[in-house]
């Protein structure tokens, strides 16, 4: 189970991060469209976020620092949920930009409920993984998890 959670979350984050790299200008517009980040900070956020996404996604896929990565993913998803939720509440007409581009869409093309449902489901998976980080097919194995947790898990198993 934990291995499946790792692969799903890791896959989603690596892909969503990688899709944002080729068109930095679009990433900037997607972040700006939320109207939540002050203008001087928009480019650094737009350029830096994909790096974090890819880094935690790779950690999950490889199975190293699984607990830390799972917590980071949960925090990111919580931030995304707040972002999309506030865009919805403020009546903005934007695409979430979750997988690259995003930004500008017509009113009938917004998909806030679906986007929030997806992020919420991923958040639950991330929290479960943070609770039980040890899994098969992981490079880090026990040493990646802190020792107390590893013993915890072996008892649970």
């Amino acid at each position, binding site marked *: 189970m934990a291995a499946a959670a790792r692969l799903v979350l890791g896959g989603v984050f690596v892909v969503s991060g990688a899709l944002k790299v080729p068109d930095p200008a679009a990433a900037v517009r997607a972040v700006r469209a939320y109207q939540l980040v002050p203008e001087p900070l928009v480019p650094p956020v737009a*350029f830096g976020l994909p790096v974090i996404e890819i880094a935690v996604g790779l950690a999950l896929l490889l199975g190293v*620092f699984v607990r830390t990565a799972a917590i980071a993913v949960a925090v990111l998803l919580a931030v995304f949920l707040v972002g999309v939720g506030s865009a919805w509440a403020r009546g903005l007409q934007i695409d979430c930009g979750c997988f690259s581009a995003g930004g*500008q869409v017509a009113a009938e093309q917004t998909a806030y409920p679906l986007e929030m449902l997806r992020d919420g489901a991923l958040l639950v998976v991330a929290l479960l993984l943070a609770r039980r980080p040890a899994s098969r097919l992981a490079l880090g194995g026990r040493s990646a998890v802190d020792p107390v947790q590893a013993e915890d898990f072996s008892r649970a198993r």
Partner: protein
Amino acid sequence: MPAEAPRRTNRERLAARRAAEAAARARAERRRRAVLGGVIAALAVVIALIVVVVVQTQRTIPSAGAAVPANTVDGTAVAVGSADAPVTVDLYEDFQCPNCKAFEDATGSTLGGLVADGTVRVRYHGMAFLDTGANDKYSTRALNAAAVVLSTAGPGAFQTFHDLLYAHQPSEGGSGLSDDQLVQYAAQAGASGAAVEKDIRDLTYGDWVTTATDKASKDGVTSTPTVLVAGKKLADPSAAGLTAAVTAAAAG
């Protein structure tokens, strides 16, 4: 016999203590390596973060020598109509955007009439964010070509070219108009010659297109078409809605 038992027990105790110490050392070593690994990984992420932010910033800064077309107002917008017109309509559009074509089809002649009778001055703000591999960056190529027409033949020719491109808008997800077609429509609008053809094919105003798109995004435009009548967003993008909003703005 009885003397041996406590001796063995002592040896066992010693062994057990040594084993426990070894296990503790191993745990401490594991923990130390985990912490070291964590620090190294965190450093790697921070370095990657800095490098990527710097590289992406470089990629999004338009080059200093970027060509800017003549005949714009404020660098990126194109104004059509009398400067004394009482109502200004700002129009944010992408040449590939189907909703923009729907808006042009519905209101183009109405807006043209309002411009002709001196009521309205239109400011066109081009955007290009619907580039795909399939349409060979049509959004950018179309806006670049419009800039070439504007620079060569002025806002009137731009308006004609603009209307031609919406009348012949390629389907979204299709292959876009070819450069040959753009050159041909430019000629129809009144801009022809070797220089025009070269500027269209070479994306001479490519950086300007990026700047214009960025400017619109900073203006708070998050969807196209965005229509502002005297600075207020038009809620009803129909001919009647536009006329009503213009009338109200002219009266106010």
